[in-house]
């Protein structure tokens, strides 16, 4: 009856979103792919032309490439470990009966709303600065030598900052999952004499597994492309010590104008993200069916 009309109307209503996203996805990516096989230098256009895979070869053989992959993985894995384990512990703590739970929640979630450049600069200057930072004040109080965080341990410093930004997210998601746990089930387990640890392992953890999966997948997407935090703190240095893949591609493209190599790096980043996305989509898709 009206279904034919409804169906064509539905298609018409969906068209703008689909077309916009299709263009947004296909056009720039196709250009990147094309540039990755070209010699293209806006400052020196004489030698421009098709060069096959040599951009990829150049990008691979760059010692910064391996370092950047390593840094990218270090950042993703360490922040995931800190935020997931810390998030579970924090969620368990906040879920306890206490006074002022609402305010505690608000305080804990706050860092997530701080824009990345502010988060990074506040940590760099207010907390970790070797002379005027709070850590330096604490070190001096104990007569210790303040640590030059960004000079000596740049990756560790960035991991700490990014973990601070994402711990609230993990905590909030895991706490939401925890609070949907059936109280009666918990009580029954308690009555049967299950201690806190066995209750956690056999009841709470399985209940939270879906939320944990979601936290890991979503954070991975964002952590693979950390950029502003590195830009305003170490600028990738010293040397390439804190350069991740996105930052290396940015440097090649906009600072060195090696567009071909940057595009090759971009394609590698896409492949990396696709591997992650493959698992992410499967998990989210499964949840959609429920």
């Amino acid at each position, binding site marked *: 009856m009206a279904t034919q009309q409804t169906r064509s109307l539905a298609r018409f209503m969906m068209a703008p979103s689909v077309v916009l996203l299709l263009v947004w996805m296909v056009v720039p990516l196709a250009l990147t792919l094309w540039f990755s096989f070209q010699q293209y230098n806006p400052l020196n256009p004489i030698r421009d032309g098709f060069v096959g895979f040599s951009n990829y070869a150049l990008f691979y053989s760059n010692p910064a490439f391996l370092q950047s992959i390593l840094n990218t993985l270090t950042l993703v894995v360490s922040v995931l470990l800190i935020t997931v384990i810390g998030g579970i512990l924090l969620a368990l703590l906040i879920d306890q009966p206490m006074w002022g739970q609402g305010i505690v929640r608000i305080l804990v979630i*706050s860092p997530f709303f701080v824009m990345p450049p502010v988060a990074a600069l506040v940590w760099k200057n207010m907390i970790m600065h070797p*002379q005027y930072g709070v850590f330096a004040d604490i070190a001096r109080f104990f007569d210790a030598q303040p640590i030059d965080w960004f000079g000596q341990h740049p990756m560790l410093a960035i991991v700490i900052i990014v973990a601070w930004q994402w711990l609230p997210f993990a905590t909030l998601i895991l706490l939401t999952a925890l609070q949907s746990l059936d109280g009666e089930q918990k009580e029954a387990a308690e009555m049967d004499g299950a201690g806190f640890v066995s209750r956690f392992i056999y009841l709470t953890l399985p209940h939270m597994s879906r939320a944990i999966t979601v936290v890991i997948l979503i954070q991975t997407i964002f952590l693979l492309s950390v950029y502003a935090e590195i830009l305003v703190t170490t600028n990738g240095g010293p040397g390439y010590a804190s350069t991740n893949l996105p930052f290396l591609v940015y440097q090649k493209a906009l600072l060195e104008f090696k567009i071909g190599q940057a595009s090759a790096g971009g394609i590698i980043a896409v492949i990396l993200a696709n591997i992650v*996305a493959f698992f992410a989509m499967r998990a989210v898709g499964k949840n959609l069916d429920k």
Partner: protein
Amino acid sequence: MARSVTTQHKTIATIAAWIVALLIFFPILYTIITSFKSEQEAIQGFNLIPSGTFESYIEVQAQSGYFKFFLNSVLLSVGSTILALLVAIPAAWSMAFAPTKRTKDILMWMLSTKMMPAVAVLFPIYLIFRNLGLLDSRIGLMIMLMLINLPIVVWMLYTYFREIPGEILEAARMDGASLWNEIIYVLTPMAVPGIASTMLLNIILAWNEAFWTIRLTTTEAAPLTAFISSFSSPQGLFWAKLSAASTLAIAPILIMGWFSQKQLVRGLTFGAVK
């Protein structure tokens, strides 16, 4: 007996949770405190009590025209959100109320566009923007922010719309409501809370976006993310000024965020955790 254990338990939990919460919040708190110090005070070691001067706020505005960046942040986040809603509401509506076999595939595909790393298309986008004269323009950046958040907006609206019972629509149709009336009088009032939540979360995401807003702007369209990043190379004493600029940059969104905790969970997990 049991009661005293409970009280003791509650006391310990309260103390532990407050200590951890204050530690996590500390960098923000210390920034707010430092913003009310003078530059001399700010570097004189750890001190939680500021003299209460507003000079850093006045300085930041006087030196760099802070308000312009703030205004750009408001325009870009609100503008891109409205654009995204205009495009996404019809799509989410049709997927929720007239789903087809391909609806799920389309939703998954939309989500997958979110996973494309921004750097991979940095140069093409830069080139396109330059050739269209969109570099450092508010409208260009608005479209950009709209595009990167569109999948989340469609998804969130879809999960909200799907909860509107279909029977109500049928009842309205039986009473002779036209499709247009159905949308205006029946659906819209029920959808407003979902749309408002989506809007709130999207404004937060757009406000804090710190890749395209930094790379595609220089001065005219630069929002707070770009302005704050300019503090990365310090010149002289700037601790109190950095704190004042940072406090103003995060305050509105922090307060919005406190009110949107639930929507945040739902929006960022694509409805998988509620």
